[in-house]
């Protein structure tokens, strides 16, 4: 039984699998950079209220539009507020809302996509045409409508964003399901008489999970950009809560002589988006690599 040692691979706990994936992700430079940026932003979001050097809403006309200095590292804005304080606090709302928004998008988009892929036929046709119809509506217009009717509270923003960003996931989940649906193990489960729910849970989800999770991670960064656009238009976070989109919107008129007030939130927003994208990319590769190299040759 020499072969045994090669084949030995004990069933691992979810935690062990997860940590292995993270290690694989961090083993390539792009993944490491992405992960560090993302982790930095998440930590910052947690600790920023305690480390902020100034009050984010303290208005002081005497300090208007000061250039960066030892006291105000990133300068001050047109109301004399500290840009550094506002920048490190500015990602908190966006991160929270888009994180939960992505979860909702993943959940409904993924499940609906898998279901449509499995049942096929007329139900699939009708549902997919409805999804297509929603895809053809410019989301930002629809969001503006929702927000102006229902307000900009978190309870409105999270499900609304989750809904609009889940439409794309439906397509991905359906396509991934189509890849496995014709395989004989599904046919075999059907022939045994398993229920649709059992087939989805036992046979399909383990095989499409990776594709959907990666898509969800990508959607997160798009949603972040989308949310910031809403704030930029004045429909996201309401002042005086610090938010990157809002800060960019406020400071853009003064860009020619007070560039610091606009550059700091831009760097914050774009670095977070790059971080998420790189992480999602590395995540996809880690899952793919897991499949191909773990199998004995």
């Amino acid at each position, binding site marked *: 039984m*020499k072969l045994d040692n*090669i084949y030995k691979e004990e069933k691992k706990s979810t935690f062990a699998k997860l940590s292995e994936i993270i290690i694989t992700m961090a083993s390539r430079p792009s993944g490491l950079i992405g992960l560090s940026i993302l982790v930095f932003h998440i930590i910052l979001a947690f600790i920023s209220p305690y480390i902020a050097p100034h009050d984010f809403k303290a208005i002081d006309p005497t300090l208007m539009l000061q250039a960066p200095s030892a006291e105000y590292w990133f300068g001050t804005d047109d109301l004399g507020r500290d840009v550094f304080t506002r920048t490190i606090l500015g990602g908190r709302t966006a991160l929270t809302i888009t994180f939960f928004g992505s979860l909702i998008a993943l959940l409904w988009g993924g499940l609906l996509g898998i279901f449509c892929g499995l049942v096929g036929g007329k139900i699939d046709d009708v549902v997919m045409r409805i999804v297509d119809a929603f895809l053809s509506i410019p989301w930002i217009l629809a969001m503006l409508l929702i927000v102006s009717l229902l307000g900009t509270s978190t309870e409105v923003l999270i499900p609304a964003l989750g809904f609009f960003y889940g439409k794309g996931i439906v397509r991905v989940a359906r396509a991934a399901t189509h890849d496995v649906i014709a395989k004989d193990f599904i046919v075999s489960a059907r*022939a045994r008489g398993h229920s649709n729910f059992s087939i989805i849970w036992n046979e399909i989800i383990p095989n499409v999970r990776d594709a959907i999770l990666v898509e969800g991670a990508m959607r997160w960064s798009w949603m972040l950009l989308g949310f910031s656009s809403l704030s930029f238009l004045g429909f996201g976070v309401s002042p005086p809560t610090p938010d990157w989109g809002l800060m960019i919107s406020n400071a853009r008129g003064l860009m020619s002589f007070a560039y610091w007030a606009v550059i700091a939130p831009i760097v914050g927003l774009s670095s977070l988006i790059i971080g998420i994208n790189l992480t999602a990319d590395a995540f996809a590769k880690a899952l793919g690599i897991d499949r191909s190299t773990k199998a004995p040759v």
Partner: protein
Amino acid sequence: MTDIIQKVKNLSIGFRSKKGEEILILKNISTNIKKGETVGIVGESGSGKSTLALAMMGYVKHGLYTIEGECQFNSSNLLKMKSKDLEKIRGRKIAMIPQNAGQALTPNLKIGYQIDEALQLHSDLNEKEREKKISELLNKVRLPSPETIALRYPHELSGGQQQRVAVAMALAGTPDLLLLDEPTTGLDVTTQAHVLELLNFIAKDTGTSMVYVSHDLGAIAQVSDRIIVMYSGEIVLEGPSRDILKRPIHPYTHGLLKSIPKLSLAGLPESMPGSQPQPGTIQSGCSFFDRCNFSDENCKNNSPKLEFLKDLNTSVRCFNYEKLVNESQASQTVNKIKNKSQDQEILNLSEVSISYAKQKLLDQIFNRISDDNPTVKDININIKKGETIALVGESGSGKSTILKSIAGLLRTKDGLIRFDENRNLSSDLKERDPNDLRIIQLIFQNPDESLNPNHTVEEIIAQPLKLYFGLKGEELKKNIIDLLQKVRLGEFYTSRYPRQLSGGEKQRVAVARAFAAKPDIILCDEVTSALDVSVQAAVLNLLQQLKEDFGTTYIFVSHDLAVVRAISDRVAVLYQGRLCEVGPSNDVYKFPSHPYTEVLLGAVLEPDPDIKPKLVAEDIVEERPPEKGCSFQGRCSRIVGDICKKEIPPWQLTDSGNAIRCHIPIKELQKEQF
């Protein structure tokens, strides 16, 4: 020695593992290909045969690299050549014919255009000459009316025709050496025989050397002058084809030939235990050691060298070949199967027809199927308890379709499926109750697809146990281990994933899963055709053993007549979804038989250079069954007149109880076929 055109010298190809070890795929291979010679390279999957063939073209797969040695063609080493120089050789001097021509041809270019491309690259002919050459080439590969074929797209041709086009393209550059990588593996039996005959003709006609790579000793026997047997990256036996097939002096080849089911012998062939070692596992000793019946201590510790035996003109890598020199291959032992079928009927199909036609809106609304000429029609079969019945036919004969309907996966148009003499089974899954679903289980062709890659063996086998018997905890675990032992797998397999198992092991898990439901009937859909020959025999033996233990009934679908001969009690031959012949397997394999059965039997390739396939009918592929008359009228060589085209032939009984559906009286059939 100017007649050697390809010289492989001490070639080792391998890859580096993650830990930095060198793992060899090919180990120190040396061989010569002579001018005008056809060399067959045979071996199981993973033996390195394709890697060797590709290296002969100067190509090493991505991820692999040449560790040492060379492939000399016209005294230059192909493996060190620049890609610009290689381009001049590939196609012009060495051409390759791929396994799946359907995938190798560009789908959106016409056949003529694709051949013309090859001609432009590899010859200096002008447009007029090329035009002439295209029809010449298509004529040479015996395609009917070359002018119209040249204007068609690949999807408009049948598999056999596509393969012929691939041969024509390879010949476009008038190469000195043709490499064929499993060129007939995906084809139907009759088509395969025709393509091999064509290759033989081309080898003689053009004097091209050929290297024929295949796992199928039957095909190799028909084409090659010399055979190289590979095992685990090494040449274990090399010599004249007749000697190797008649008197294999290496234990591996010996066992391989024994494990192939033969048409002339009923019963299951002996199987070879174990499987080929994974690359990089064997450190010392002979790589075939643990599967060998002739091994001793010496084999365990020392690896044998390839030894050239002058009197036999053969090279062999074995210490104990002398034990085999005097033993002839004819002493094949088979485990005769006992027909244990009882008189009680277990499944009855009466007047079953199945249609794939797209239904009109009105029919859709009323949820009915209307089709005057359904894909499968008038199937009447009585299956007895404990019997193994085989459905045989080429692809498109409707054999898998019938299986799907029995399993409840495909709605029938008409007819009844009756279980146990009194219970009607619906062909719609939703209308069957759980017990109806339990009594019929399926085993699929390809275990890679039929086992969920993200489930462990335990989870896979647990599915039916949980579903039908509601087992949990300890009891579930105990049952799983029981089942694993029944299919000869140990307890330690429970935590493995399918990707960690070999093909044979995967198929055993699939068998265990089917038996977990304690079914009365198991539907086997080409269960051995994705497996290596030595593994195939083992799986067949296992199925037979389980059947004897449990009294299960098998419905066995296969295109391989020799396998069917080995395992089945009764055979039903299908053509275009219509039954042609039904009878006990001993009688179906004897004449007189239906003209279609005759064609199938004639096309079987035996690993014996003396038994040539008989090509009775054309290998045309019919899209749809004929509307009227006999289903086989389009290809039959014994057509008796208008009656075949107008009337459905009657069932006739032979003396031995074999039913044949033909207009020709049995006595005349007998006269003509003898």
